[in-house]
């Protein structure tokens, strides 16, 4: 069993890898965590993680610059159905397209677009930066045992855009920030979080542990 965290030049993956290693150890689902830019390593992995920070178009270009990586993702996640977790812009890339600065194609796994957050309350700051509670819209193995709702645990967000899913069925959780903002999406064996589980202390480590034992 191996977890591949895809390294395509988008930010530091060291702390993400450490968070996965710790969650693996503490949850009793210990498995090697591999940070890699090798498409063959992704094909051979049992689980795949796509992080991402910065702008949508930059991340897409970075992913495309790794020869064969998009194909490896399509084959491993879409055709073989291996569990996948996108984080922040890695989650946004699951959409059909992004509208940050320019219109850019996503992977097209989740119908919908990535667009700017527009809080109804103009005094709310953008980026949405800080801790927020999750409103679960449907049960999902990633949320097993994690308290949600106003009295639940908190997740750490830092973003100005979010994935507006075309189908409610693909929405697992939202947060309220002057209106609903997408927090977790899932479609088949592919899921994504807008927040950073690797920075979300208890909730984050619990969600990562859930991902490591997820057997869709």
């Amino acid at each position, binding site marked *: 069993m191996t977890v591949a965290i895809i390294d395509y030049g988008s*930010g530091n993956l*060291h*702390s993400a890898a*450490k968070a996965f290693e710790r969650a693996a150890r503490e949850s009793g689902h210990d498995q090697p965590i591999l940070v890699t830019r090798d498409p063959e390593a992704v094909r051979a992995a049992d689980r795949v993680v796509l992080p991402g920070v910065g702008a949508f178009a930059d991340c897409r270009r970075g992913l495309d610059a790794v020869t064969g990586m998009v194909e490896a993702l399509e084959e491993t996640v879409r055709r073989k159905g291996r569990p996948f977790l996108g984080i922040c812009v890695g989650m946004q890339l699951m959409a059909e397209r992004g509208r940050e600065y320019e219109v850019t194609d996503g992977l097209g796994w989740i119908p919908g677009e990535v667009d700017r957050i527009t809080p109804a309350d103009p005094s709310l700051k953008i980026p949405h930066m*800080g801790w927020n509670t999750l409103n679960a819209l449907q049960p999902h193995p990633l949320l097993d045992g994690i308290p949600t709702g106003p009295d639940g645990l908190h997740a750490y967000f*830092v973003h100005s855009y979010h994935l507006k899913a075309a189908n409610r069925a693909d929405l697992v959780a939202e947060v*309220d920030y002057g209106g609903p903002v997408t927090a977790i999406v899932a479609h088949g064996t592919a899921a994504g979080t807008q927040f950073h589980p690797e*920075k979300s202390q*208890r909730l984050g480590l619990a969600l990562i542990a859930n991902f490591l034992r997820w057997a869709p």
Partner: protein
Amino acid sequence: MFKVRVIPCLDVKDGRVVKGVNFVDLRDAGDPVEAAIAYDAAGADELCFLDITASHENRGTILDVVRRTAEACFMPLTVGGGVRTVDDIRALLQSGADKVSINTAAVNNRQFVAEAAEKFGNQCIVVAIDAKRVSPDGAPARWEIFTHGGRKPTGIDAVEYAKEVVALGAGEILLTSMDRDGTRAGFDIALTRAIADAVPVPVIASGGVGNLDHLVGGIRDGHATAVLAASIFHFGEHTIREAKQHMAAAGLPMRLDP
């Protein structure tokens, strides 16, 4: 529900915490990583390191501190102090910092903010503003940017400067009142509010916290979305949890996860 943030800030020099941290029994009160782990466990919403290393040869020490902190703490980390080039930012982010704060380099060259935001995304570019009141008592309040630890005036209006760096791509403002820093007299509320109301990005209030009511004032009256403090936490006067409970009792939305 969205919560306001409480951020302890550690001054780090040559890889060591300046003056030490004594709020829990640490094996090594001067090790920033141990302090970071303790603040993580105590429920801090973010952590801030300010590197005040003077000599060029020791500038790398902060990278090792950041790397070891990111391995042990799964919480957001902002690092500032001496950030002058795109390479400085890249090195900090690659070591595990989530956000990097730019101070003097942005005052000297505003385009640096644009360049940094373009390269790394505005979510990780914080501009630190050190401001001092320059208007006489009774006159309409006006603040200017000061550099060199508050000693050197620049003639730049603080509110205009904040708007400018945000337009260039700063994703957050870390605002320190140099009049209040170290005084324990509370935040400069008028300054905090003037800047928080002028920019669309989050503002962290800093400088002057002496008691827990000051933290409440920074958010409620200063309109900041986060408060930063150092000594009231480092020396065990108040725990992070006490601070957050006090703020919650005052009606502010706080994260009180067990």
